[in-house]
């Protein structure tokens, strides 16, 4: 191939556009693999805490708004479609459609972060914060008010532990009084078990890291949007659109697991 035929987007160390595209693609998939392992540590922490303390998760997930979480799931899924469609548009050289679809994807990102902001603000207002900052005042919280208004629904975890043996008034010397967390389970989800702040630590870390990824994805989409408006992409070169798309889909993928694991724990 002579220099005259060398397209401007092809780096000189690659033989063909196809080789360049495939090499970049391996790179982005390796990066996505490291992202999965990064979130994997948090998923592992979640699994261990939920296996050992199901009562905390059953109780605390009531403070998450299923409607807002579900809306965010739908927003992310739709923005994934517009992103995949944008890649298609760039492959086919449909510049106007590409710009429209990237804008819609970016709008989805703004929608997601907006709803996330509302959710975080509610948690902040009710003192539902991670670790040492956990200082709940649930009285004003809709979730608790709704639960308190209904006849207490039995918690399946606690039901297995119902006992007919009456609790002793006071334990023998050296033992602690009957565990309050145990009582909390029997009395339904309106009583708070111990160590609920662990749930909110996990919640804020997982959704926070995910939200950070959404922000980075939005910046990347903005960059690709500007470049596509300048006409940089076409059927023979659309690599940045494709790779930003893969990243955006990974962000969607992680939310697909976060939503049921955090918001949809039990009835």
């Amino acid at each position, binding site marked *: 191939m002579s220099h005259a035929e060398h397209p401007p987007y092809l780096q000189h160390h690659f033989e063909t556009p196809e080789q360049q595209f495939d090499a970049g693609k391996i790179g982005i998939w390796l990066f996505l693999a490291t992202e999965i392992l990064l979130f994997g540590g948090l998923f592992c922490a979640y699994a261990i805490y939920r296996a050992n303390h199901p009562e905390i998760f059953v109780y605390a997930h009531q403070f998450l708004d299923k409607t807002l979480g579900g809306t965010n799931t739908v927003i992310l*899924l739709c923005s994934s479609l517009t992103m995949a469609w944008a890649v298609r548009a760039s492959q086919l050289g449909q510049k106007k459609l590409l710009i429209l679809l990237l804008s819609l994807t970016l709008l989805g990102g703004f929608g997601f972060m907006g709803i996330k902001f509302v959710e975080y603000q509610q948690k902040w207002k009710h003192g539902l914060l991670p670790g040492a900052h956990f200082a709940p005042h649930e009285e004003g919280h809709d979730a608790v008010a709704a639960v308190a208004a209904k006849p207490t629904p039995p918690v399946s975890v606690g039901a297995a532990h119902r006992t007919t043996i009456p609790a002793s008034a006071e334990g023998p010397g050296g033992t602690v009084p009957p565990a309050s967390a145990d009582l909390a389970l029997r009395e339904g989800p309106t009583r708070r078990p111990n160590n609920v702040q662990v749930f909110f630590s996990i919640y804020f870390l997982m959704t926070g890291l995910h939200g950070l990824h959404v922000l980075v994805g939005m910046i990347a989409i903005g960059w690709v949007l500007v470049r596509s408006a300048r006409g940089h992409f076409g059927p023979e070169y659309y690599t940045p659109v494709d790779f930003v*798309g893969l990243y955006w*889909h990974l962000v969607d993928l992680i939310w697909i697991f976060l939503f049921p694991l955090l918001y949809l724990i*039990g009835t």
Partner: protein
Amino acid sequence: MTPHAHARVGHVVPLRVLVVVLAALLMLTYVTVEVSRHDFGRFNLWIALGVAVVKAALVLLFFMHLKYDRPFNAVIIIVSLAVLMLFIVIALQDTTQYRPTQIPGYAPSIKTNTQ
């Protein structure tokens, strides 16, 4: 211009496929929300995870082009998911080897044979 300069790289996914995948994803989201409203005991978690895995597979195969991609990219992602599974399963196996009931009230939902 040589035909080479305009050679298309990658695979163009039909729009119909993309729209059908989105419809399936939205339907599965509805299923997982609806299932969470009913009490299936411990199966709730497994149904939720199963639905999430199917949704993830749809996104990977069609939105992320893995179905049409070079198999090596699929190998990368499958290996990383397998390693993650190994990590979580071994950690979960390990955490059951201790006595969470050592501290009264610490893990009130855990049943042990020692009690």
